């Protein structure tokens, strides 16, 4: 409250300097009728502080006075401050209203001066209310705004709080408190500026420029750290707009398609009925014409789609579904005779009541390009989506993904490595092998296809997919190779132990049971296969000069060789 004492109370006789402490200059203006607003009074009143009524000589002085005295209440009196603000706003409203009525009521000559006065008081108001943000001069922090209670005190020989800064505080390096965290730093490490509000929170709009340290600056500055996901980049989702637009645009098309569909179904049913003998065949044309509302062909001189002029060779045709007159040129494809049964099949893909197939396969229906696209595209798309053209590839992919997930899970559950990993990775390798085979096969047949000029259904993109999958597997194996090697070493050690214990108990080579022989043989085969694969991988890397990985592979190979040797040793003469 101390700040709001009424300094100019003695002058403004009717301003109550009473209990609230809030001056109400409004009373002065409303109490004084228009007659009292002589020019001199306006001048003095204009340069009187609207809050405390202190008289100012210049506008500049008034501004400064407002900034100094009224903008920064002492900390801890926020409630009073709020109260003060609302009161002040009320006062302002009243003044403006009063002045406005005054202007309206006052004679012409005085209105000019009245308006100046309002402008003045209005500008004062804006100065006060906005002074925290958009004042022209930047608001630098000062002790009365930004609390300093939390500041660290300098005692004795302290060094800068910045990590790795050995400077002694005081003297030539300076002693500065970070306004935000309060810690002491040297001059150089408090070169950061951020806007803080009274509670020391960053406030880019209304805050006061305050000196702070690097940590505070980087952690509180919005959007400064770009790698921080919370300050993620701007992304505008236009999906909703797009969908609305699309709905608008394709609404009519959809309606049109429904009409076309109905017509085609009717047409196909009619054909069936003719075939069954319910309707005589000679009625077909009339029915067709009635159904699709045929365009009068005598008025048409060119194809409605390709705009080629009709003549003796370029005949007119009616589309049986939309009735347009189009040409029948096969190369341009403006219209074509669609075999009725194919038509039926396509229409049946999403029809509840299936249309019956015709017995005679020679029935055809002429469709123009537009209708064909409208009727068929979506259905054909639907068909091809359900048919699995890439099933084999997807199968591989699913396997790889499943294995990957398994290995990932296993690693989480079982700790760093495990024998199970070896098996899983082995499986992965096997898939990789299969994929590589597949690529070779596809490429081979592609070449063959070229030679025979036989358009085999091989997609180049499919080969690309397989290749990507292969490199995906290789990438995965590379990442997991260290684990694999560790696990294999572990396995080897175990087996060696076993072997040792076996050799202790049974110094002589035991005769192997048939079952054991079979098992060992299988093991040998698997091992040989693995060796082959690693060998392949090794060659591949060698070719691509991935020398970093070669070493590990070499180790791998020798491990495998050792194991093979040991198994072979066990098998002895029984090895094949």
């Amino acid at each position, binding site marked *: 409250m101390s700040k709001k004492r009424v300094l100019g109370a003695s002058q403004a006789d009717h301003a109550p300097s009473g209990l609230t402490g809030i001056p109400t200059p409004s009373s002065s203006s409303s109490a004084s009728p228009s007659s009292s607003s002589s020019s001199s009074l306006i001048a003095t009143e204009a340069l009187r502080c609207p809050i405390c009524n202190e008289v100012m000589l210049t506008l500049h002085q008034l501004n400064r006075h407002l900034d100094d005295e009224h903008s920064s209440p002492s900390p801890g009196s926020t409630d009073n401050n709020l109260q003060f603000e609302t009161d002040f706003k009320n006062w302002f409203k009243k003044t403006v209203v009063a002045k406005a009525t005054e202007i309206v009521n006052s004679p012409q000559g005085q209105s000019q001066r009245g308006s100046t006065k309002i402008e003045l008081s209005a500008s004062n108001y804006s100065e006060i209310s906005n002074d925290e943000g958009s004042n022209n001069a930047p608001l630098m922090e000062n002790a009365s705004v930004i609390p300093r209670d939390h500041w660290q005190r300098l005692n004795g020989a302290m060094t800068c709080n910045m990590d790795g800064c050995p400077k002694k505080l005081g003297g030539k390096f300076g002693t500065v408190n970070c306004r935000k965290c309060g810690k002491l730093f040297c001059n150089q490490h408090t070169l950061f*500026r951020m806007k803080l509000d009274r509670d020391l929170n960053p406030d880019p709009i209304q805050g006061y420029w305050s000196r702070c340290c690097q940590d505070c600056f980087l952690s509180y500055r919005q959007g400064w750290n770009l790698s921080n996901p919370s300050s993620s980049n701007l992304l505008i989702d236009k999906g909703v707009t797009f969908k609305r637009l699309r709905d608008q645009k394709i609404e009519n098309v959809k309606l049109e398609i429904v009409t076309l569909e109905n017509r085609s179904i009717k047409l196909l049913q009619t054909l069936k009925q003719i075939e069954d003998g319910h309707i005589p065949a000679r009625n077909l044309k009339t029915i067709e014409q009635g159904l699709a509302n045929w365009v009068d062909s005598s008025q048409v001189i060119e194809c409605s789609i390709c705009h080629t002029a009709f003549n003796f060779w370029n005949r007119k045709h009616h589309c049986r579904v939309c009735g347009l007159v189009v040409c029948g040129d096969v190369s341009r494809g403006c219209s074509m005779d669609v075999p009725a049964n194919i038509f039926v099949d396509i229409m049946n893909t999403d029809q509840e009541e299936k249309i019956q197939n015709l017995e005679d396969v020679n029935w055809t229906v002429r469709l123009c390009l537009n209708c064909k696209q409208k009727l068929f595209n979506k259905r054909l798309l639907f068909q091809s989506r359900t048919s699995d053209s890439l099933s084999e590839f997807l199968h591989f992919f699913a396997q790889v993904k499943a294995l990957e997930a398994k290995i990932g899970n296993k690693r989480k559950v079982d700790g760093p490595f495990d024998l199970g990993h070896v098996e899983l990775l082995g499986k992965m390798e096997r898939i990789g092998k299969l994929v590589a085979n597949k690529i070779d096969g596809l490429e081979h047949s592609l070449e063959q296809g070229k030679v025979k000029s036989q358009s085999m259904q091989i997609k180049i993109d499919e080969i690309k997919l397989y290749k990507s999958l292969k490199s995906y597997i290789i990438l995965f194996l590379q990442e997991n190779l260290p684990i694999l090697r560790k696990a294999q070493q572990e396995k080897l050690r175990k087996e060696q132990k076993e072997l040792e214990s076996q050799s202790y108990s049974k110094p002589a080579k035991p005769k192997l049971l048939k079952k054991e022989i079979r098992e060992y043989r299988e093991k040998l085969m698997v091992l040989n296969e693995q060796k082959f694969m690693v060998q392949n991988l090794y060659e591949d890397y060698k070719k691509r000069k991935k020398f970093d990985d070669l070493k590990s592979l070499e180790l791998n190979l020798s491990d495998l060789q050792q194991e093979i040797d040991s198994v072979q040793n066990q098998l002895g003469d029984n090895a094949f």
Partner: protein
Amino acid sequence: MDLYAVAQHYLDRILESEPDPAAGEDIKVLLLDSVTSSVISMVTTQSELLKKDVFLIDKLDNFQRDNLRNLACICFVQPSSATIGDLAKEIANPNYKNYTVYFSNTVSRSHLERLAESDDLEMISKVVEVFQDYLVVNSSLFTMPQKLAPHSPLVHDSWNQPAFDQSLQSLMSVLLSLKYKPVIRYESNSKMCAKLANAINFEINSNQMLFGQLPARDLPPSLLVLDRKNDPITPLLFPWTYQSMIHELLGIRNNTVDMSQMANVSEELKELVVNEQTDQFYKESMYLNFGDLSESLKKFIETYKAKTKTSSNISSIKDMKFFLENYPEFKKTSINLSKHMLLSTEIDKKINQLRLWEVGELEQSLATNDNSSADLAELEDLLFDRKLQNGQPLPPLDENTKLKLLALYALRYEAHASSQLSRLTRQLQQTGFPAHKLELVKTLLKNSGVAQRLKDDDDSIFEKVSNSAMGNVINGISFADNSDSNVYMQHSPRLKQVLMKLFRNKLNPKNYTLVKPNGLESYTGNDKIPDQELVIFIVGGVTYEEARLVAELNKTNKNVKLVIGGTSILDSDTFIGLK
């Protein structure tokens, strides 16, 4: 400032979005156009994409693509009319299961409508705008996705329209991706700068929806639009730092250096990728000068040597190369090392071949010292091949190098009463120097001579900037001091002067017009607080030297973030008009 972080984030959002959550993990097809494919290639690698289940990458305008109906498709394209047309064709005859569309910039409503019209099969499940319509070259350097000549062919100080459109679009996407709503300053003597700055202001004001939602900042970011013509010196001088030298002598294009023309280059070194993001050694040494670079390479080799426990004394680059070639198993361990070895040996070779040591010294002296007569004598010696070594005349200097020296002299002593330019030109012509090349010097003087340049108070572009009495720490921002003894690094770009003034808020408002978009009217530029976030754009092209200046500022000062870009990245040949 790290533009890579921005790009990576966008990339993650594009690729990790699940187009069809019900189907579980999906194999993705990525369709790009010519612009976005270079955008993507600058910030990621094939195997990174593979890890994110992108198994097929193709161009949108390749219509030979096969039908792969089981796969989901992600389109990352520029919202240009051509690509919208291609996209419309694609979705009318879809090859893939469904489409998610990401535009690299703001897409106009009419384009969206066109797309909606063709999507009667309802193939598009998502349309998103990301803002990545620029190439990330270094972590604080960006450039335009397409190389277009910025100047109109007829009038120098006016835009070539396609280049203008691209610059505007790109710059807008830079601002949006950084979430900047900036105040704009431009060099008032340039019509091109003025046009670009005002266009950006207009775009910001007419996209209040977009810019209004950006977070408030303590201080509005600044966009500084400069014109190359105000500093014709920097691109003319031979730069002595690693990245700049690679570009100047070998040419960097979209982060790759083409070495296929070189003899004796093994297959895997035919195309070298120099990318700060993936190459640690490059990141550490891209801004080093040639001496430090050899030092750093030596260290690099020695660490490997320590590993392989071999010993051989390495003192020169030749020795290093010998060492590498003779230890094949050593070479195995790092393609990277041989890559940098190859680059630096090539640079070394070219420097010696073009006699850049002596030329560079003269260039620096011409650019920074006021020593007319001695420089002229040296220049004449070089221009007319009068230099002798052991009594033998040296092989003649490269024509283009001569031309650049002449151009430098012409710019330096243009206003000088005793300028010998016309005499030198005449004499050169008599020796059979091609006239069309000499013509280039005249063009250069016409376009960026003293009459065209900004008369920026008392500053001259020929001063050593550190000599000016400004000191090295300005308003809390420290500039690296280049007044060390290195005779080849005397000159610093004019940009340094401009930035020094900017940070003390001493830019002359007459020379640097301030444009304030709506909502930023309160900004005066007279605050005691220096700019904290700054985007610099140089119309007419940026140089790697300027990028280095900016990168060093970013490195030494945590309280500022700067990004620099330009219509293209210049080398001296391109700048003077030889390429």
